[in-house]
């Protein structure tokens, strides 16, 4: 039963509600909202706002993992895109800045996709290359400094607001809508799942698996670049060393919490986003409660392990066996009666 729950997403939504309830207990003003300068403020908005980069990353990551892949380089791609956006922001127009940063993310994603789909390298290793080198490249762009900018146009991506909601939240929600519409509105999602389920069989059945893999990594790179732009806009600068540091792990964690199997073949975009919000709600809760933020890592470790054990095929097999035994016993009793 437990093993079947994640499919319907009940477990994740319950977990999020529970964590929010705990947050409410820790900080009674948690759900308070107030309007200031045409923008909503409050802890809940803060969770959404701070969670936006990881939500964006997990939108890309979930599709990559659905093809049985993984992308370790998203943090580094964030750093590169942020560095490019910050260094161009004050001298070029906004469309050009965005095009340059997003284009670079796309190229990074295509590079990863090329290594995985064409050269046939294991995803974890293929993306490790960019994870190691990417941060170096970002530092090359910023020349090892923290590049700051003053352009209000780019700054809008961090501090702006639409209808009272912070810009990062609106952008993340828009990307979620777009991804769901494209992937689930067409056969694309099915083809991606087929690729992850059994690449060879899909290939023989006429699915362009290589193209699928190339496309999901490119999409992941694009999402990472957007997350990088938001992070850079948030602090009005680019820090090549720390932008997006370890966020690839958060994104993978969000996807795994969302019930997407690391073995590929099925995925849920919405639940991955719920997973990202769960992580952020935990972070915010720990901060509000006054516990040392270092506790975060321990909590995350426990959550990963718990989710993994629930997902484990071996444990599902045991649960199934127990259920069958119980059923058999009941039937026996029925026969006796």
């Amino acid at each position, binding site marked *: 039963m437990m093993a079947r729950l994640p499919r319907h997403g009940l477990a994740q939504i319950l977990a999020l509600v529970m964590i929010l309830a705990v947050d409410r207990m820790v900080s009674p003003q948690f759900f308070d909202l107030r309007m200031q300068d045409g923008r909503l403020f409050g802890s809940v908005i803060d969770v959404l706002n701070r969670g936006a980069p990881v939500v964006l990353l997990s939108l890309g990551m979930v599709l990559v993992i659905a093809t049985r892949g993984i992308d370790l380089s998203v943090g580094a791609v964030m750093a590169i895109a942020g560095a490019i956006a910050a260094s161009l922001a004050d001298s070029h127009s906004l469309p050009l800045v965005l095009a340059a940063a997003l284009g670079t993310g796309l190229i990074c994603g295509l590079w990863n996709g090329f290594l995985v789909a064409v050269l046939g*390298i294991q995803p974890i290793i293929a993306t490790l290359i960019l994870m190691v080198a990417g941060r170096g490249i970002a530092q090359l762009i910023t020349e090892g400094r923290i590049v700051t900018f003053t352009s209000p146009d780019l700054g809008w991506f961090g501090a702006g607001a639409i209808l009272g909601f912070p810009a990062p939240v609106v952008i993340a929600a828009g990307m979620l809508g777009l991804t769901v519409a494209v992937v689930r509105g067409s056969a694309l999602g099915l083809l991606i799942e087929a690729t992850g389920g059994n690449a060879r069989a899909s290939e023989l059945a006429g699915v362009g698996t290589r193209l699928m893999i190339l496309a999901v990594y490119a999409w992941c790179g694009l999402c990472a670049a957007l997350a990088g732009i938001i992070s850079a806009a948030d602090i009005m600068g680019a820090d090549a060393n720390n932008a997006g540091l370890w966020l690839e792990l958060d994104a993978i964690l969000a996807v795994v919490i969302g019930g997407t199997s690391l073995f590929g073949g099925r995925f849920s975009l919405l639940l991955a986003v719920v997973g990202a919000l769960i992580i952020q709600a935990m972070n915010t809760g720990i901060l509000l409660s006054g516990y040392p933020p270092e506790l975060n890592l321990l909590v995350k470790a426990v959550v990963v392990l718990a989710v993994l054990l629930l997902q484990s095929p071996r444990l599902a097999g045991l649960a199934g066996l127990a259920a069958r035994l119980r059923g058999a016993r009941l039937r026996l009793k029925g026969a006796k009666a």
Partner: protein
Amino acid sequence: MKGLPPVVITAIVLVAGFAICATQYPNIASTRVVGNLLTDNAFLGIVATGMTFVIISGGIDLSVGSVIGFTTVFVAIAIERLGIPPWLAFVAILVICAAFGAAMGGIIHLFDLPPFIVTLAGMFLARGASFLLSTESIPINAPIYSTVSDFALRLPGGGRLTAIAIIMLIVIAAGALLLHLTRFGANVYALGGSRATTALMGIPVGSMTVRIYMLSSALSGLAGIVFSFYTAAGYSLSAVGVELDTIAAVVIGGTLLTGGQGTVIGTFLGILIQGLIQTYITFDGTLSSWWTKIVTGVLLFAFIALQQAIIVLARRSVLRRAGATS
């Protein structure tokens, strides 16, 4: 390509790189620089030896950097705050690390989970635990620390082979013996070749998995002790990102990431190549340290592409042979 194992290519790259560096900066070719290179990378060499076993067995261990960080903090607190004799602290931390690795190996085997994600959880756990112990850097002033850091074998030419460099060389030699000459080592290769076949051959896959991760974590613990000798302090943020450097060194050393092939000596050469890049950058003075990352990334790509080419060629020759017999 055939008959030229990756480790030979690594050796050629190292020698060529060293020659290029030496022609540009003749001082690099001195025992002083080489001695320092060994000292600076001592902890990396020790971790990488354990990682070689894990990767040859078809797994991966992302927790090594955090385990090093945890070890330095634990040792510092045990010695400086609790007054435990250093040797006892060392034994205790090695036992803790071994148990930690055994637990990860056990979970990987029992629940049939990808090693990558289990050791990722281990990485969070160890780093979080070290943060909980202390977030400050704790200096270690125990007398044994100054004794060990003063100890060094004099090399001809004024170089010093420090105690921690000697520890690394011993670990690498012992690792090479264990991997290439014992039954345990043969089983590690078998496991990386094919898990199912290994199990059918009657090799206890479960206990092997547990022991391999135990070895990796225990060596990370030893590396942590060595690191605390190197910096004379315990700090929870030390050795962040070391897992990547280690994996890179193992791959550059010619170990196949899919498992089943590799050598400890190759890993050692991989460590030396990374150290050489750093040394070159230090000598140059105008290059920033991030060039290390870019060059490492490029080398990583080159070696992975090379591995892929070797695999494809091997598969083709097998196919051709199969075609000839049928």
